[in-house]
């Protein structure tokens, strides 16, 4: 009997101690991104092309870009937005016409110059990686795991001329 209780307690403790592991960009991330973009005042709607900024010389960047294009290359409906992903090289991103640019990991070195070039045109820079937001090169970063987390850089949003509704702002993290 004692053994049985001990086993039960160990299982319970194991359940409490279990923590989910970190995951790469997923379809859920992209759906949350689409939803969040919908809260931009006078923001994009309908089919929205999103440039996946890639450093072809960086394996992690390329892998992430391929993964995202695999997820939304054919379009992903999320709320009032249908996200359509296309790869764009970090060198060409500054001159591109995408309304939204997604920074993959490994593009940190180019993010500052790209943001400087596109923010004045109202291009919304996004990612799932915090360092982009911490450097104020991304307007918004989203994550779906282990729980949904949406962060907005008020500095980057200001430079881009992007604003969000009050209710949305109260429910996300601004920095």
């Amino acid at each position: 009997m004692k053994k049985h209780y001990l086993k039960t307690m160990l299982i319970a403790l194991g359940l409490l101690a279990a923590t989910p592991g970190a995951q790469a960009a997923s379809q859920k991330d992209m759906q949350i991104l689409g939803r969040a973009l919908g809260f931009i005042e006078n923001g994009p709607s309908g089919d929205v092309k999103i440039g996946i900024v890639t450093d072809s010389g960086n394996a992690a960047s390329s892998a992430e870009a391929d993964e995202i294009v695999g997820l939304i290359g054919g379009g992903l409906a999320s709320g009032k937005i249908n996200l359509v992903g296309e790869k764009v090289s970090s060198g060409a991103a500054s001159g591109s016409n995408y309304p939204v640019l997604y920074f993959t990991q490994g593009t940190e070195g180019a993010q500052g110059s790209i943001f400087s070039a596109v923010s004045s045109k109202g291009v919304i820079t996004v990612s799932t990686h915090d360092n982009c937001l911490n450097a104020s090169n991304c307007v918004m970063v989203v994550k779906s795991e282990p729980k949904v987390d949406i962060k907005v850089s008020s500095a980057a949003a200001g430079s881009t001329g992007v604003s969000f509704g009050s209710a949305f702002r109260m429910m996300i993290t601004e920095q």
Partner: protein
Amino acid sequence: MKKFLFSAAAICALGAFAAPQAQAQSLNYGVMQEMFGEPVTTSANGSPMRASDAPLDMTIISAEDIARYPARAIPDILRHYAGVSVRQNTSTEYSVGVRGYNSAMNERLLVLVNGRQVFEDYFGLVNWSAIPVELNEIRQIEIVRGPNTALFGFNATSGVVNIVTVNPLYDDIDLVEGDAGINSYTRGSGVYTWQNEDKFGLRISGASTKIDEDDNNVNSAITSLRDEVYVRRFNMDAALQLNDKTQMRFEASSGVVDENQKDVFDTVYGRDTDNKSVRANLNSDTDWGIVDFTMYRNAFESEYKGAAGTFNFENDVTVLQLSDTFKIGTSHTVRLASEFRTNTADMTIVGLGTASEETLNIGSLSGLWYWNISDKLSSSIALRYDHVETDFDPGTLGYQASPFNPEQYQNSYDEFGYNLGLVYKPTDIDTLRLTFAKGVDLPSTFELSTVIPGAASLYGDPTIEVSSIFDYQLGYERQLSSINGKFKLGAFYQYIEEMQSTRAISTTLSYYDNVGDSEVYGFEAGLEGLTDGGIRWGVNYSYSEIEDDLISTTGTNFERQHSDHMVKLNLGYSPTEEWAFDVFAAYESDFKQAVDITASTSETRSIDPDVIVDAKIAYSPSKFDGLTLSLNGQAVLGENEQSAAGEEVDSQIFLRAKYEF
């Protein structure tokens, strides 16, 4: 009086402030919930937030959860949540308490529909059957544990149940539903929504219910009790999007209930109720934040027929609320609010030709400061000030035999309440909550001014003190991906000063008074999950202990009528999209309860521990899109002995057919 009215109106007009009941209900709950992967609320502190960020102990019951229950009324659902005690007195009448102090006509629970209070002010009671909302149109039910009067207003002394309906602008619900069961139970209801693009939405709903109460044997000695019970409800909800940032909402409702009800003396009455309400709300996202203006009027009419005679109550409540919620910088949210309320209650004792009228005018100012200190830590401070003035017109009754003089019936109160909360998230899956609150329990008009002369006379006490509730809570929550669920633990201690209840002066005279202090402490623990095979399950345990320090001449004894232990279990399985099976069990330990023996006498009985098991089997045939047939059982293991007013309430078995189109 005029000066007071002018001052209160000026406060609202100047507008900086409003009582936090005026929530930003135009929030698109469905979209937000889908995006954040969890329920969202505006009730926690008046500003929109995710449930996991709420600086108080809150459980949100979603529409999907509600659909699992074999429920006819909202308390049938609440019964199965931690810390909630539900005692069913008759087939349609319930007493609901949160963390102790459950009693007949419980006046310690605040119930709101879209921010509109639906408890009947003259006594603070909730007529659950008269709430003009169908289960199928509820977006979510929020249970808040503990006193939250600085956030919600008075009566929120033990907890709050906030019912949020779907917004007709965002949610298109069209259905008809019919029930038929034992005890000649029949019910028909419907919900229809009409939408015009994104600009206008209108939803109407209604229900008519009949139940044969005779088999429940509520008390055959009282001939005025009803053998048949009727419930008829209607609700209309319209939303107009004036521009991208401004929405107007208008609601009108009616709830007519002819039923049997247990009163504060544990006597069962026949009661006919006719409740009506109108509510208008304007919500705009401006450069100065979210400005919300709400105006509503509740009109309650009830006739009580019992051994002591027939009493008629008329109660009109008009409320104006104005608030502004705005963000300062990136981490501070501030809410400034004001409320004005005028409450008039008339009581007539049929046969004596007597009547009295009590008026309560309340002006409130409140403020909230929510500070997102870091990714892991946030704080919330809510303060509220209430100024109350009472006035009494004795009508034809006069002050005959009242122990109070006329001057004492004109009174005023100034009260402060507060809610302080800290939320700490050491990891992405752990949340710790620490809260401290002072709640305020204002006396009801009945407690202030009732004048019932006769052989067993009862008087309100116009000098009765406001009751204060001090509450300390510590909560912990952990998301458990390994079981697709979560673990939740909460401990609390509550101290109540100057409780209000009846006090016997002699065998023929009683009046309301402050009867002493009381404290309650305890904890709740719960675990819930979803297996890979699709089995949903949950279990929670609640322990609480009440210690009264009351005068001996009061008829109140919370210690005696309290269940120390509650255990709730639920299990559900949907093997295919067509079938769903759900079972719910609720256990309450023993307690003592006053029970009518004859029309004029009662005795205190021990009520044994009892388990109430509810079950539902639902079938949604794929060949008939929109149709769901279900077999529903309440208290299927036997009569609901514990919850009754000493007389068992029958098990209920019914078939339900729902067609969504």
